[in-house]
């Protein structure tokens, strides 16, 4: 498929996206195939759950993804993961919004990469205090409960 497709984000911004880039989203690719079959005029497709800020990042990712498919680098996923990390610039909020958007748009590769990034970030934390801090997790254990859980898992320490 060639050409451009017109999409609009939740805050009303209109994007003109390369068809190849749009096709990485399963959701969009299904929609586009439907409109192609009926031959109807393509009005901008509204993406109610995706803000323009996040959508910009997704388009950037789409370009990388299409590029990576063409070239023959030895480690395409590692390279893409680095790119995604650059896109979110270590902002947890952005990463989660990107994950939710990827889920909505059915971009499996981006979804997998964001899972991996979260998992790696959590694994890189020294202790639970650090994880709580990074992800704003509130410790709602009572001291007694915490003691109990700690005891149970002290086998590893």
């Amino acid at each position, binding site marked *: 498929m060639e050409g451009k497709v017109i999409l609009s984000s939740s805050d009303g911004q209109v994007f003109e996206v390369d068809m190849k880039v749009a096709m990485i989203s399963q959701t969009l690719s299904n929609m586009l195939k439907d409109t192609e079959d009926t031959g109807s005029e393509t009005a901008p497709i509204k993406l109610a759950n995706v803000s323009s800020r996040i959508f910009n990042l997704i388009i950037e990712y789409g370009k990388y993804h299409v590029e990576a*498919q*063409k*070239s*023959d*680098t*030895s480690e395409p996923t590692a390279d893409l993961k680095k790119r995604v990390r650059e896109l979110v610039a270590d902002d*947890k*909020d952005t990463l*989660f919004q990107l994950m939710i958007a990827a889920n909505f748009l059915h971009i499996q590769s981006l*979804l997998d990469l964001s*899972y*991996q990034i*979260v*998992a*790696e970030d*959590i*694994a890189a934390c020294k*202790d*639970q205090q650090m*994880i*709580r801090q990074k*992800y*704003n*997790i*509130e*410790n*709602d*254990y009572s001291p007694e*409960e*915490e003691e109990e*859980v*700690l005891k*149970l*898992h002290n*086998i*590893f*320490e």
Partner: protein
Amino acid sequence: MATDRLSALTDEFLSTHILSEFSYRNVVRLCLLSKRWRFLWKKITFLNFYWQDFEKQKDFEINVIISNALFHLDALFHLQIVLNGPKTADLNNWIRLAAEKKVESMSLQICYRDFSMVDLGESLFRCKNLTVLKLKSINLPKVPSNFGGFQSLKTFYVFDNPNLDDATLQEFMNMCPHLQILSIRGCVGLKKLKIRASNLICVHLGFLNPNISLQMACPQLTQINLMDYGYCRGLKLLQDISRKESVKIITLHNYGTNVVNPDIPSIVVLNSFPQLEELIIHGHCFQEMISYKISETEVTEVTLSNLKIVRVHIGTQKIGQAVNFLDFLLKNSPLCAISVFLSKRRSRIMLDKLLNLEKESRLSTAIRGWSTESKAICVLCGHYRV
């Protein structure tokens, strides 16, 4: 205060996606975060135990930890155990527990401190839902006479098992009627390898006895991957394959050096795979292939009528020879994509020569990909991945 987006994800999202990559030790650590996380570990379906997690534990403690986890999980899909250096391991008990949870994928690797091999017992045959089984440095058990076979097993790997003999492997393979992917590496005790599998699609063989004889009857086989075989020995194995019509992808890897044997007609062997679409040659294999003179008689016989993609790794070879070889393939096949990995130093010359080749061939599109990595440069021509 910023919102806690991580805890807001559903159990399913967290357990199947984010936590599945974690080692068990890290999963357990997360219980300490908050009440939300306390029992989440029971929901995970991927269990990964690595020896790095158990550096301070004694053998019995490891046994307790692993058995406990396996016992309390709600369901288990994938179990991976990699242990290095215990004196004993309660492997058969773990597998029994995993079988009760209807485990579908197992990857096991245990190296005892005294380098003896771990024996796998009959508990393995209780895992009737297995689709993937990977065993490294673990002895295969005897198949009990009343066992009905692993009816869902699609992937089987057996690595680093010098004790494995022909009969044991044969007996085990007979129990896997639906096998699609088979990988045998580092099993130097095998002398005659008979593979009869009607559904096998892909086979990897590597680091086996150099004089092994191969008998393959696999009507669906499309992919052959030979590692550490050298070009000539690899070719001999390829010659032994009886049903060549289905094969589409051949890979030859080689990490050691090998003597060139000019008696083996390389192109003729490749020629005998009429459906061959992709050829991947690494290391010294490529050197051997290009240094072999293509004789006049061979050239007239060449019918690589389906070859579309060639990937080569060029190390110390003479670039001229390599280009001549690629040119030969271009002239005798519908080849439309060449992917070359080569050292940075030599990349400029190679690139120029490949560009020259392109002018006279159907590789008319300009070089598509051109990526620079630390050690190698990848040159890619033509309609790659059309």
